[in-house]
């Protein structure tokens, strides 16, 4: 039985297969509409989410399956003090596959120790968010055609931004990709990712605090939100939240085929005026999330058409 806790649980070959399957689902959705008939997905969301939860639910419904679950810890037995392990063990009696989001890092690892059904990590605190990464990879693949020969910039909260951590780990396994990390000093990429992923693989990367100076070289720009919920200290959040705002002025210096991504939700780090720019791909990215999750559910349930 397979789980997905971290994007590196999947080989690059498996990621290629998932992307190919998602592309086929996009092209021929009717072929897949009954693949998961009589199967149930449990969405255990101990932390609020819009896109991830709804895209998982839409994915299962479009595969002909059913969905059950909860969307916040307060409406589950976690509010009564139940452990993650006990909740998951119980839910395994009701569902065929579990998508789980939890504010604590490593909660999905605790879940798979006792789960008898596949578990998908739908985000665990500031740690990992592999299905967002699959969504990002599908979008980059659709825009660039392949995972090689481009420069990708990550901008904003690179310290707590789990989407950034997972995407860097995934792209580090391909060759010919250059990395630019744009963040305030306090929100730099964690050193363990720099040491274990970038330096160990001799990947070309630079770290900077200036979006303006970095933007002309980028082929992909991955913007992130500074997340209030990751700070213990509100004053630090207020001080750092408006460090980077992407607007049309800054984009004048960017390449004409730049691909702008954002895991959403955005607050103000991308000005609304940018939405009309053809280089803005973040809403397509959100839509792609449903298709790659359809592919993932099929893979983990070992189903095919």
């Amino acid at each position, binding site marked *: 039985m397979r789980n997905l806790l971290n994007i590196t649980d999947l080989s690059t070959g498996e990621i290629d297969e998932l992307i190919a399957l998602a592309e086929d689902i996009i092209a021929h959705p009717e072929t897949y509409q009954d693949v998961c008939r009589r199967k149930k997905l449990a969405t255990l969301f101990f932390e609020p989410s819009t896109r991830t939860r709804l895209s998982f639910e839409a994915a299962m419904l479009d595969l002909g399956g059913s969905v059950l679950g909860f969307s916040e810890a307060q409406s589950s037995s976690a509010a009564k003090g139940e452990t993650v*392990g006990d909740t998951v063990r119980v839910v395994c009696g009701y569902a065929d596959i579990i998508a789980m989001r939890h504010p*604590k*890092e*490593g*909660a999905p*690892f*605790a879940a798979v120790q006792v789960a008898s059904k596949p578990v998908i990590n739908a985000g665990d605190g500031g*740690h990992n968010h592999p299905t967002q990464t699959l969504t990002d990879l599908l979008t980059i693949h659709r825009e660039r055609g392949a995972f090689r020969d481009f420069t990708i910039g990550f901008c904003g909260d690179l310290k707590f931004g789990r989407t950034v951590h997972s995407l860097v780990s995934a792209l580090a396994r391909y060759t010919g990709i250059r990395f630019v990390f744009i963040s305030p000093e306090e929100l730099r990429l964690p050193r*363990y990712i720099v040491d*274990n992923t970038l330096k160990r693989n001799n990947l070309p990367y630079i770290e900077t605090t200036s979006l303006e100076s970095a933007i002309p070289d980028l082929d992909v720009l991955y913007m992130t939100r500074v997340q209030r919920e990751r700070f213990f200290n509100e004053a630090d959040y207020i001080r750092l939240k408006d460090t980077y705002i992407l607007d049309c002025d800054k984009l004048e210096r960017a390449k004409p085929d730049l691909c702008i991504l954002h895991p959403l939700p955005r607050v103000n780090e991308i000005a609304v005026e940018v939405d009309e720019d053809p280089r803005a791909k973040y809403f397509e990215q959100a839509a792609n999330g449903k298709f790659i999750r359809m592919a993932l559910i099929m893979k983990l349930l070992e189903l095919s058409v």
Partner: protein
Amino acid sequence: MKIDSIQNGIVLDHIKAGRSMEIYKLLGLDRLDCSVAIIKNARSTQMGKKDIIKIADRIDLNLDVLGFVDPGITVDIIEDGKLVQKKHVQLPEKLVNVLKCKNPRCITSSEPHLRSMFVLTDREKRVYSCAYCDTRYHR
């Protein structure tokens, strides 16, 4: 200084000087009823000085703990006053219920009944990472 040799038990030898109390705590030797001798800064031709622990009973030892604290330790098994077996320890691939994750955001901090688990992620630098949250622990 003279410490009586043991008839049946275990001698942990070649402990890096100063590490014996850490081993004493991690192995829970304070909970034993038998005699336990800790010899600090014993003279050693190989190491200059070293620590030694003598345990006057054949207890089950967690060799992973010893390998984690100091992979140079040797474990001598004594029977009827004679050395019957000498074991060498090594840096373990996995540590279960030895370390506690210090990351306040880790699930093990809010659910302390969970088994703590660390995996060796950099043998050269002796770095272990929490299996739950990847927080690194330098030995």
